[in-house]
């Protein structure tokens, strides 16, 4: 064989070999773009079966995920999909699976228990979901028995609503010169504490709408050094309820990353408020509220949507006080499932262990988002 032919065979062979290598052992970028799956996947172990299922879920390949289940006869594919994405518009609907991890709990020759933790990414942050999966061996492959959770259907009914509502007529462009516009509502910071945490300085407090009209509020904090210079300025962003009805109080929390409290001489607080149209609907009641001390300190309870409309996303802000009524901590949680009328949905707000010991009382405050309500 001459050199040319040998070179041609070498190039062709090397090309095929490189493609095989790149496909069987793809690099991280290619693996991520393929949804985490490669051609070496098999379900020869319980962990592999759960991994394959999680990857199918991550790719939103519901058909493949459903068909791999051992107990698929117990529910339909749409029910399986709704279990993961919700049957109403919610954070789950457009959540993407950021990553997952699994922990084998125990296994035998034909059965195993594996805990699957899914980390979902949403527009307002991430939320974890834990499922304990029973995995069974069918022939030479393992299959997952999916623990289906079916959302409660609300029965047909009429729900009367009777709520307060404020409308505002602003000064128009064609109004006479000198015409008064509506006055901004009066709000006041009733409590404020700077605290040093591992990742920086945290400013927390409470803001009161002391007016008789609703207010759209924000709080900005500026840290000042001893020489009066500005160290940093941050806003409360979503760690506050921005819509306050008359006499309502919202907690707020502002985080300054990579700042030491020892460098801070003073803090300048800038609350702002503007008058907006608002209504008291939907009313979200909190049931079974309970503080669970460390370890695993948390505030738990159930949200009940008392209106007749679906609330797509709820945000719970927890305020924690010590024995003297001083503010200890502010924490929050987004609810990943929609709140259907009259249907309780659990929440759980975690509290840092070191602060949990000081907590004597707590308060939960809920804000909501309903699709279409912004029109």
């Amino acid at each position, binding site marked *: 064989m001459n050199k040319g032919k040998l*070179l041609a065979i070498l190039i062709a062979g090397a090309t095929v070999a490189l493609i095989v290598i790149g496909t069987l052992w793809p690099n991280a970028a290619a693996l991520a773009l393929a949804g985490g799956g490669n051609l070496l996947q098999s379900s020869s172990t319980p962990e592999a079966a759960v991994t394959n299922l999680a990857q199918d879920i991550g790719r939103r390949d519901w058909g493949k995920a459903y068909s791999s289940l051992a107990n698929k006869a117990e529910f339909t594919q749409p029910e399986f999909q709704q279990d993961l994405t919700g049957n109403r518009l919610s954070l789950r609907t457009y959540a993407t699976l950021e990553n997952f991890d699994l922990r084998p709990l125990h296994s035998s020759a034909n059965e195993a228990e594996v805990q699957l933790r899914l980390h979902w990414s949403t527009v307002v*942050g991430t939320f974890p979901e834990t499922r304990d999966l029973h995995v069974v061996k069918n022939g030479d492959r393992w299959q997952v028995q999916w623990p289906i959770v079916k959302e409660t259907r609300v029965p047909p009914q009429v729900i009367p609503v009777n709520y307060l509502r404020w409308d505002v007529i602003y000064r128009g462009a064609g109004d006479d010169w000198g015409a008064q516009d509506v006055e901004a509502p009066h709000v006041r910071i009733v409590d404020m504490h700077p605290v040093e945490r591992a990742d920086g300085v945290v400013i927390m407090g409470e803001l009161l709408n002391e007016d008789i009209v609703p207010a759209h509020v924000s709080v900005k904090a500026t840290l000042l050094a001893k020489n009066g210079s500005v160290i940093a300025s941050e806003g409360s962003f979503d760690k506050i309820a921005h819509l306050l009805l008359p006499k309502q109080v919202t907690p707020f929390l502002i985080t300054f990353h990579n700042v030491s409290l020892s460098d801070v001489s003073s803090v300048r607080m800038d609350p702002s408020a503007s008058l907006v149209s608002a209504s008291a609907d939907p009313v979200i009641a909190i049931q079974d509220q309970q503080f669970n001390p460390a370890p695993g300190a948390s505030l738990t309870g159930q949200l009940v949507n008392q209106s007749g409309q679906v609330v797509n996303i709820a945000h719970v802000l927890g305020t924690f006080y010590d024995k003297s009524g001083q503010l200890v901590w502010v924490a929050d949680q987004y609810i990943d499932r929609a709140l259907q009328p009259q249907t309780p949905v659990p929440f759980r707000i975690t509290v840092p262990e070191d602060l949990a010991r000081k907590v004597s009382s707590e308060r939960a405050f809920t804000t909501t988002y309903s699709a279409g309500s912004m029109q």
Partner: protein
Amino acid sequence: MTFIMLAACAVHLPLLLMKLPLKSYDTNFHIFFASHYVHHWFDPWNTKWYAGFSQATYPPLPQQWVALISHITGLDMAYMAVQFAAILLLVVGVYRFSLLWVSPRAASYAALASVFLGSESFLVYSAGQLGTTSAAPIYLNALPYLFDWVRHGSWRSFLKGSVLFVAAAAAHHATLLFGSFFFALPVLALVLIDRNEGEPTSTPSFIARTVSIAVVVGAGIALVLLPFWIALIHYPVTQTPIPHPSRANYILSPEWGLNYFIIPYGALVLAIPFIIWRGAISVRLRPLLLGFWVAMLVGLGGTTPVGHLVLGRAYEVLTMERFSYWATLLALPFVGLLASELIDRFRMRAVIGLSVAATLTCGLSVAWVVYHPADASNFQVDSVAAWLNRDGHDNYRYVTLGFGNKIARLAVLTDAGSVDGEWNSGRMLPELTEHGAGALTSSKYFGKQGTDALTAILGHADKYGLKWVFLKDPYYEPLLSFAGWRHVDDLEDNTIAVWMKDGVPPATPLNAAQMPPHWQGLMWGILPFGSSLLALLIVLIPDKRWQENPTDQDAITHDDIASGRLVS
């Protein structure tokens, strides 16, 4: 050649007159850069994106030509004119480059094939990569001069090659950097192979000529793009890598394989066995084969480990489709050879078959922008621009959500500045560079990284004077609602919502260290564009017809004989 140029006109001129590239990913990006040069030729600091960024982070030549021509035709048609010139230049470049390797007849077929090249149409009509598609033809035209200089020591070729190389770099730096490996090294290897044919080229002469042109071109590029190098050295691209589907494994992700391999290559895929076989058995074609092979492997993205191994950190920054483009350009001399032999053997049947293959390849890649549009939702941003431009709204910055690559078109139309943008390597805002996400307007496609970047920038709205959010995708509505933004207006039949944040101070210019000083602005306005004018003038000096040198012609004829043996 006239016939081939007419073919290029017949195929591409109607498509460009229809402004088809406006539907591509990056065309509006280039038009946006050009629009800045229209008003600020000597100031590369653009305040419309990222609260201010330097356009000296991207070679300016094609965009400056667009800016110049736009004074006559407007920006859109100026873009089409420059793109058309690049397509015509490619025909000439492919012909001249192919002449180094194959006979004039095969080179003519190669040039004709370039008109129908899938990767060219893909980059022009789907990707909108004006920089790459204008630099490559200039580079191809420079390579024969490189050969002539190193092989024969022609000072005229030295001069012409040098100015063309510099002009190519002024159009797109990556083309020159990687083109040196994929294109120039094979040409230099060809000189070595041919050095003892006829008039010999001694090894010291070869080395001296290679080094001399490398030094002169290197110095020229360093000077012409000095502000670019200064920006790159002071502010290297260290931001978190952003995922790009061209780095996918095309077997594990076949949808991207279709997009980045099947469409750009088209019927060229069928020629790959011939390329490998003929390139291997013909000594003169081996360097070209190796250049093609490595470029193809890198262009396959994550399908093989080669791209990652060859490019290292640059693999995370570059997109891979340009390597496929270069691979297909390197394949064209082989395609010309194959066409020549097929036509010799099968006559009209080969002509028909090749015509069908070329038409399907070109047709599919042109139509790909329809089947796989850069932006599925075709909407106008004129009303958004008009809203921003009235009542002092442009005193504040804005960001769009769900606008896709329309943000460049909006930036052209409005006077207001944004904290977002599409030129990832030029951005400096820490909220953006710390997260591995692209444009904020498409942040949901980047998962947690995208959401984190968006949250960070919205959280610092006061700092950047960011008062307006234009919402096209309701996906983002909950974040705005919970973060304290208010819905204040609707545009485009209520398909675009305007959200605002209370209490935001008016935007002020950022006193960024990246802002190029005045002297760099002068250089940026004079030297890159001047290099192209100089290249035009010098290339007009009549050529010595080296192609007719009997020695080199003998070498090509020898290959033709070899190929004839193979086919028969």
